[in-house]
Each structure stands twice: as structure tokens, then as C-alpha cells.
């Protein structure tokens, strides 16, 4: 059932979701996660200094705590807070995409 839900959500165009970022911002966010989160988590999100962020490695983790980690960081570890760089609903959008398998990068904004 959850697989079906995930598939249905993935099939929805991102712009159609309430509170979801627009297409240019989506491109920026995907680039940010792949490249700059990728400094520690790897371009393929298989991990590095930071843990892997693949769908498999995140499965079962509560999404609220993942969103809180993105926004607030994890004190005592190198994970910095991204509040101010991404908005709250953008952090939620990033976590949703991570949980279903993150999209590939189409480059920096023009």
C-alpha cells in the first residue's frame, strides 16, 4: 500500500502539490541536495562523512525528525542547520523526495 502511495505521489507533478516549490526552485533544491548536501552525503547520497540518504537507508525513519534535522541540524555532529537556506515547506519537500528516492540533478539554475 505504501508503495502504491509513493508511486502515486511520485507521479504527481511537483508544482501541483499545495505548498510545493515551483519548477525553477525544484531545480535549485535538487541541485542543492545533490551537490552541496552531497559534499558530506555523496552525489549519489550513498553517504560519506554523513550517513547515506537513500530511500532504503531512510525507510522507517519518522519524517518529522528528518525534517527537523534538515532545518535544525544535529548538534554534536557536522550536520548544520539549513533553516534560512531552505524554507520549512521546502525541507518537507526534500524529505518526501528523499524517502521515495531523490531525483537526479539537472544542473544549476540558469
Amino acid at each position, binding site marked *: 500500500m505504501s508503495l502504491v502511495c509513493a508511486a502515486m505521489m511520485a507521479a504527481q507533478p511537483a508544482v501541483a502539490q499545495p505548498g510545493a516549490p515551483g519548477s525553477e526552485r525544484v531545480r535549485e533544491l535538487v541541485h542543492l541536495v545533490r551537490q552541496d548536501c552531497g559534499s558530506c552525503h555523496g552525489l549519489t547520497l*550513498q553517504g560519506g*562523512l554523513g550517513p547515506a540518504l537513500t530511500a532504503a537507508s531512510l525507510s522507517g525513519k519518522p519524517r518529522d525528525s528528518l525534517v527537523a534535522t534538515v532545518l535544525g541540524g544535529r548538534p554534536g555532529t*557536522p550536520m548544520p542547520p539549513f533553516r534560512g537556506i531552505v524554507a520549512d515547506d521546502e525541507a518537507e519537500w526534500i524529505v518526501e523526495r528523499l524517502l521515495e528516492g531523490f531525483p537526479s540533478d539537472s544542473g544549476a539554475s540558469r
Partner: protein
Amino acid sequence: MLQFFVKYMWWIVPLVLLSACAGPQPVLRGTGDLGVVIERATGQMQVIETSGRKSLAQVSGLGDLSHASVVFSRDSRYAYVFGRDGGLTKVDLLTASIAGRVVQAGNAIGGAISQDGRLVVAQNYEPGGIKAFDADTLELVADVPADFGSEGKRSKVVGLADLPGNRFVYALFDANEIRVTDLSDPRHPKTERYPAGKQPYDALVTPDGRYYIAGLFGEDGLSLLDLWQPELGVRTILPGYGRGEQALPVYKMPHLRGWAVAGGRAYLPAIGRHEVLVVELGSWKEVTRIPVKSQPVFVMARPDGREVWVNFAFPDNGWMQVIDTFTNRTVNTFQPGRAILHLEFTPRGEAVWISARDDNKVAIYDTRSHQKLAELPAASPSGIFFTSRAFRTGF
């Protein structure tokens, strides 16, 4: 006609076959002005020439290059490329082809080459440890796990550097230790352990191979080991350089390497601060601290030591600054492109190559005038490595 061919021209057949087998012959040339540019997103790299400021060839099939680093064989013909995915690829710069490749770990961060050039050593996050390979064949010759504690845990390894005597020094991010592994008899590695500061994230060895300095994420200061008197253990230098202030969030870990040494001083990125720290080698006294634009990532001395060029962490990674080491002031602040990830000086330092990831280009600057000389297209470029590294301890 056929008789004529058989009698006089028979030699053409084996010649044609031979040349077809051998493929295009490499041009006879030296390698001292060659280098590579990593194209991180596509698992490729360019072979470049600094004299002509041009790309010579592209090599594909190098795996995940998110945090790729490169060392060179002592004849500076081969580049050993360490990929994030544990791939170790030996690339022939002259033929621009892969001469060997192994996937040696699940997650790797870089590597080093031994003083005698016979061993290539990878530093790994998963499984944590170092592994040594025969530089010719890439056959595994030593596997040294970074184990710690009593529960069989293994630490991520950072800051690997070669030392005289086919020894290697490195730090353990999770175990707060510096280790020295002697691979002079690679089948029987011997490892010494030195307790160090909290969460070392990278390190450097001075060009003479004497001092090893590890940057610390979890502590206000740096860990120093004098490799001429290792029995004295690790001491903390620049303790409390952050003055107890809350460090800024770090969006990109700084990188340390022996390139930061100039004029008897080390120029070090202050983690979580908009500062470059200047410390005197030997006395380890703070000379000064230089305010800079943002959090420094690479703090690299021009080969003559007169200038230090600095790039910065996200989100200020479009900027660079130049510090005059005579006055310890910034003398230039400029924007070479979007997402500046790395820079590399030509062997004698007349030019510097700068990768601008989000502009898909490498910019080449004159280091006297600070003017741009040329740009080369490159797909999402990150690390730039020149063959002159082959002759430097710690590279």
C-alpha cells in the same frame, strides 16, 4: 599484379595489422605540464596541459567522483583516481586510457602514494581503514582496519599522508586518534596509535614530513604530532582559537594539505569562522588571524609562498580572496564563477586553475596580475590535480 604484391609489398599486411592492433600511437612528449580535471557528476576526467592551457583528452568510467582525489606515479605518467564509491582507477595520461581499476571499499575519501612509489594507499570511510595496493598491478598488499574500542567498531579515516620510509599517517574521525602505519614491509604493517583531539576532519603534513597537523571539528584547536619525536605524543595547538564563541554552521568541511605552508608559517582555515589562522611552525604561536569573506575551504599558498589563495564554503562559494603573506592582508576579492570547488597552481606558480562547478568551466588566472587568462569548458568540474604533486611529500 598479385604476384607483384606478394613479391614486393607483402610487408604491408603485417604492418597494417600491427598498427590496427596498437591503436593510435601516443605523441612522444613529457608529462611535467600535464594534469587532470575531475568532472564529478559524470564520472569523467579531462587530461589537460598547463603549457598550452588546453584539454587533451577525456577519460570515462571512473565511477562516483563526488569526493575524488588523485595522486601521481613517480614517473608522473599515471594518475591514481580515488572515487567516493571506493573505486581506485589507474589512468595513463599519455594514452588517456584506464590502465587498471579496482573497487576496494564501499565508501572512500582519498589516498596517497608511498615515498618509493610502489604502494598506492586508499583511506576509507566504509569499512573504515586504509588499504595498500601494488602501484603497478593494483593488487591488494595490505589491509589495515581503523578499529577502536572493544566492540569491533571501525572509524572513518581522514587526512591520510605519506611519510618518509613508506610510512603513512592518518586520523580517525570517530576515535579521536592519529595513527602511523609503517608499510616498509607491506605484508607486515606496523601501526602506532596516538590519542588526539575530538573529531579530526582532515590533516596536513609539512613538506619536510616532520609535523602532522589535524583540524578538529569537535574541539577548539588543532592536534599536532611531531613525527621526529612521536613518543612525545599529540599536543594541542591554537587552543581556544574560537575564543569559546559559538561556531557558525559548517556547510563544507575545510581541506588541509601541505600547500598551506609559506614562509615558515602555516595558513589554516578556521572551522566555523570567517578567518584564516596564521601559526609559526616550531613555536606554534599564533602570528595573527586574517578576517576573510566567509568560511575558508582551501587555503593554498602560491608555490613561491608570497600569496595565499582562499575559496569558501557554500553559500559563499562564488568568491575567492588573495592574501599577501608579507603583510598578512587580503589584497584581492573576486568572483571567478559559481561554486568554486578547487584550485591548483601550476608547478612554478605563474598561473592558477580554478574550477567553477555551476558554470561548467575551469578559469585560469595569472597569479601576478590576478587577471583571467583563459577559460576551458568542463562538466561540473571539481578537483584539479597537476603531475608536479608526484614529487611532493604529502600529495
